């Protein structure tokens, strides 16, 4: 077993995805196989290898501090499932700010 069901459950919570019990079962089985395959990477000696997070050899990309304008408010809110007086509206937030 390369991944436990509890880990899948925990990770699904981190990703904020609700899984039905049968989904969780199936996904855990599939991820087990996939991670087992991914574990072939453990064979590679990477001790002295630097990670590549950006493939391009470019650096220091910036923009000038000049305003380029904002969207009109209608466009900001056009796709909003719920809105009120120019705000987006969500259920009452009671959780802690992380």
């Amino acid at each position: 077993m390369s991944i436990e069901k509890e880990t899948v459950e925990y990770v699904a919570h981190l990703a904020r995805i609700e899984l039905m019990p049968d989904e969780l079962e199936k996904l855990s089985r599939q991820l087990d196989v996939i991670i087992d395959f991914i574990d072939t990477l453990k064979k590679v000696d990477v001790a002295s290898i630097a990670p590549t997070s950006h493939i391009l050899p470019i650096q220091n990309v910036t923009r000038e501090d000049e305003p380029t304008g904002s969207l009109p408010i209608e466009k900001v809110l056009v796709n909003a499932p719920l809105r009120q007086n120019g705000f987006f509206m969500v259920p009452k937030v009671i959780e802690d700010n992380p």
Partner: protein
Amino acid sequence: MEYETVIGLEVHVHLKTKTKAFCGCSTEFGQEPNTQTCPVCLGMPGSLPVLNKVALEYAFKVALALNCSVQEFTKFDRKNYFYPDLPKNYQISQYDLPLAREGFLDVQTSDADKHIGILRVHLEEDAGKLVHKDDVTLVDFNRAGIPLLEIVSKPQIYSPEEAYAYLLALKSVIGYLGVSDCDMEKGSLRCDANISLRKRGVEELGVKAEIKNLNSFKAVKDALSFEAVRQEGLLREGSPVVQETRLWDAREGKTISMRSKEEAKDYRYFPEPDLPPFLIKKETIEAIRQSIPELPREKCSRFMKEYGLPQYDAQILTVSRATAEYAEECLRQSQGVNKKIISNWLIGPVSAGANNRNCGIADLGLSAALLIELVQAVETQQISHLTGKSVLEEMLRTSKSSGLIIKEKNLGQVSDTDSLKDEVEAVIKDNQKSVNDFISGKENALMFLVGQVMKRTKGKANPKVVQDTLRRRLTDA
């Protein structure tokens, strides 16, 4: 058993750029909700960030002013967590390679100078604002994406007073750089505090509490004082301190446990693939270093040395850059006047005038030349000190010069004995009892008589001349 309080502060300041950190939306405060947003700061699908050059420059400025070593290689990372004020549900921040580390800030407390270490300085984007209603929460993303500098102190602050002094000094330094308003009320400076207690002499840190919801410098001090007492109480009775987040309730004057199931944080940081890394050249850093102005502590000691001011005066006059520059202008121009007297005017009546107008002394529109003219009028006894203060008020109100006001209102001080003679005689005539009291040795009675003359002359008489004249007249007789 004696306990030592150990505090670390995490301060976030908004950088005063024209536009947001990663898009061209304006950062102006107090606009209608969601009107300063675009696909980028809303985190719309498909949008991409591009770093504001000036935000990076400002960040380096602060880092250098805090004596940090700037990293040659820096990058941004994504901090992943879900919260409705966070448009992308990740924050662009910096994790393992912050732009600067290992600095310090020298801080003056009432009893001593303290040297407080800075652990790291990094740049990130701010989140939006939540407005809580009875049964729903409203979200405004105007603030989302404003460049935020996080400054983390080492746990080297040993009292709430020191924490307070640290914040004042930090605000002063950042204000000198002109890169942030540091206004806690507007949310442009925010502070979280970590506090723990340990037995004196022990190296290891105790269990800490993190305190949030600190809305003013005073709140920081009060909350830390409360928390130090609370933790000491627990330790003395042998109860454990729980590692937790506590909220400061300013009205009740206490910290409250958030009492929620606190999940272990798992932010899944990884390098932000949308932003290539930054290789900072030594020349770039040098150029920024050159642009850093004289900072408050240096300026304070120079004011003491160059103008012979006491430390107390120099400190007050250097608290903000604008104040210091104005003060220096006045000190420099006032040839032949005692610098301490200029300082007294600045710290006293001029500051009072500024306070009444809710601004700094540099914002009064009072030119150094005009102020000096006024001070000289008092110093040469052309007008009394009291009259001087009211002339200052008039100057602030009308922008007229002191000379003009004195002339227009005929406020010139009368020092000529002859012209005061009639008034003196009249007072002596009307106040025989006080005259007798003085003659029989009651020195105080003389001051009463001086006051009467001042009254009759509507304050124009030179009180010193009046006093001399009265004394001579009454003792000769």
